[in-house]
């Protein structure tokens, strides 16, 4: 099998992104942008979760907290000194990345389920903080009036299309990053942490430093996914930003797709995200989590290594 190098892969991904943008523009239906935005957002979240959860084996139940941090950083900055959304994404990445680093540092002695519980606790603490912080809306929530159009000189596109393109770019950046990590020395190091930390240290792997890189990177991408959210939703309240939906989906999507490769979270997010969007329109939005739950149970039984694992296993059997 020939291996595509990172530069070629990046070019292919950007080309796919451009094609998707052009197709979406040609169709030009607002709903399509809204629905695709959500799916793209989940691709970023699932890929981010997988950097820590899949590659290093540290299960993070607090994805919603990092997502909300990104979203609330935008609300904060919007009230203090409004910036364009791409810069808000950078701010969200910095804030969530730093909190990820801090979380990694505080919880590095915890492994397995204890780490997972600590991340859940982090989400509760942050939500309590936000609920009681009036400046960003407290429990009432905060409004951000989304402009109808983005205008730069004579260039003018609907704002939702602009947000969609931004999220598409983020998804592409996240996927390229994940794939690059996977094939690098860093990726090998992450895998040793997942397999056996003691043995990793004995082989000279600085496990602590790698874990901190993973928590910071994973947190930063979740923050990026959350930063444009207030503009997308228009009205941000703690309950929607810290929603269980984000925590559950960011775990379920990589699990269903497969956690060992960058393809897994992508496949999982597209599959589950589309199913959820379909269910929201045809049945009800409340059925979303039920779908996730049922699919997760089914996959744990049928394909514990996710769809990617299932395909890999088939190929291996065919070869031998």
């Amino acid at each position, binding site marked *: 099998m020939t291996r595509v190098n990172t530069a070629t892969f990046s070019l292919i991904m950007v080309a796919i992104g451009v094609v998707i943008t052009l197709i979406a523009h040609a169709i030009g239906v607002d709903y399509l942008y809204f629905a695709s935005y959500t799916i793209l957002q989940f691709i970023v979240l699932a890929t981010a979760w997988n950097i820590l959860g899949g590659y290093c084996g540290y299960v993070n139940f607090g994805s919603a907290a990092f997502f909300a941090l990104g979203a609330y950083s935008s609300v904060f900055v919007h009230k203090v000194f409004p910036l364009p959304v791409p810069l808000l994404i950078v701010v969200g990445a910095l804030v969530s990345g730093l909190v990820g680093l801090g979380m990694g540092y505080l919880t590095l002695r915890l492994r397995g389920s204890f780490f997972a519980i600590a991340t859940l606790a982090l989400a509760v603490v942050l939500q309590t903080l936000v609920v009681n912080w009036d400046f960003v809306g407290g429990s009432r929530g905060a409004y951000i009036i989304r402009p109808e159009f983005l205008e730069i000189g004579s260039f003018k596109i609907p704002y939702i299309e602009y947000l969609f393109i931004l999220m598409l770019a983020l998804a592409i950046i996240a996927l390229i990053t994940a794939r690059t990590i996977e094939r690098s*020395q860093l990726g*090998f*190091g992450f*895998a*040793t942490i*997942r*397999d*056996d930390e*003691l*043995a*990793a*240290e*004995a*082989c*000279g*792997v*600085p*496990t*602590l430093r790698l874990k901190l890189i993973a928590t910071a990177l994973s947190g930063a991408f979740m923050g990026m996914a959350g930063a444009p959210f207030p503009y997308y939703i228009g009205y941000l309240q703690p309950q929607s930003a810290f929603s269980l939906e984000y925590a559950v989906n960011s775990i379920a999507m990589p699990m269903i797709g497969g956690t*060992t490769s960058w393809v897994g979270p992508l496949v999982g997010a597209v599959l589950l995200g589309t199913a959820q969007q379909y269910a929201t329109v045809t049945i009800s939005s409340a059925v979303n989590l039920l779908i996730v739950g049922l699919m997760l149970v089914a996959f744990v039984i049928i394909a514990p290594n996710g769809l990617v694992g299932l395909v890999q296993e088939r190929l291996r059997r065919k070869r031998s």
Partner: protein
Amino acid sequence: MSPLLHVDNISKRFGGFTALDGVTLEVAPGERLGLIGPNGSGKSTFVNCISGTLQNEVGSVRFDNKVMDGLAAHQRTHHGMARSFQLPRPFHSMSLADNLRIPLLYTVHARPGQLRTSAELETRCHELLDMVGLLPKAWQMPRDLTQVEMRKLELARAMAAEPKLLIADEAMAGLSNSEVEDILALLFQLNERGISIILIEHIMSAVMKFSQRLAVLVSGKKIADGKPDEVVRNPEVVRAYIGE
């Protein structure tokens, strides 16, 4: 010649239990040292303190004229200490070749002037696998290996870091006689390359054959250290093993 490893009066407590009580030990460059002791005598704690998996509260560890106290396990590996584990701990999601690639990437690669290209890394992986006779299984997973092969992989991975000292923690436990001979031959071969080896073992025939010097730990204290045949006749050692 100054010793390669100098362990000075180290102690380690777990709550109210003293696992190591003022142990002092030296290993010369190129030396083959046997370390024995009944179960629970502190051998593994001793290994863990030397290699940085645990930190000793009292005393100090010097290796290659550098103080190791407070250094993490991976930093000690970088300085040239390697260990194998009592129960093999392979990276189970990686092929045998990739298992060896880890110390090559993270330890050898990190040493100055030893930057290896990916082709060189590949060759080195294969050489190491060949040394332990696992080359035909380079792309298999650790779960496909037998016990003795697992031990060989464990030793090969420790060797991949190009150490000056190898601590083999019960590398032969549970193996058949011929398999023990296999592992012994391998350890002799490594020693001939100038690597000091601390062999921790219960199989006395292997220890006696291998060791130039023998140290005995009992209840966290070193009770004997000297020529192997003298040490095994030491009344205190006999008492520790057989009783009054």
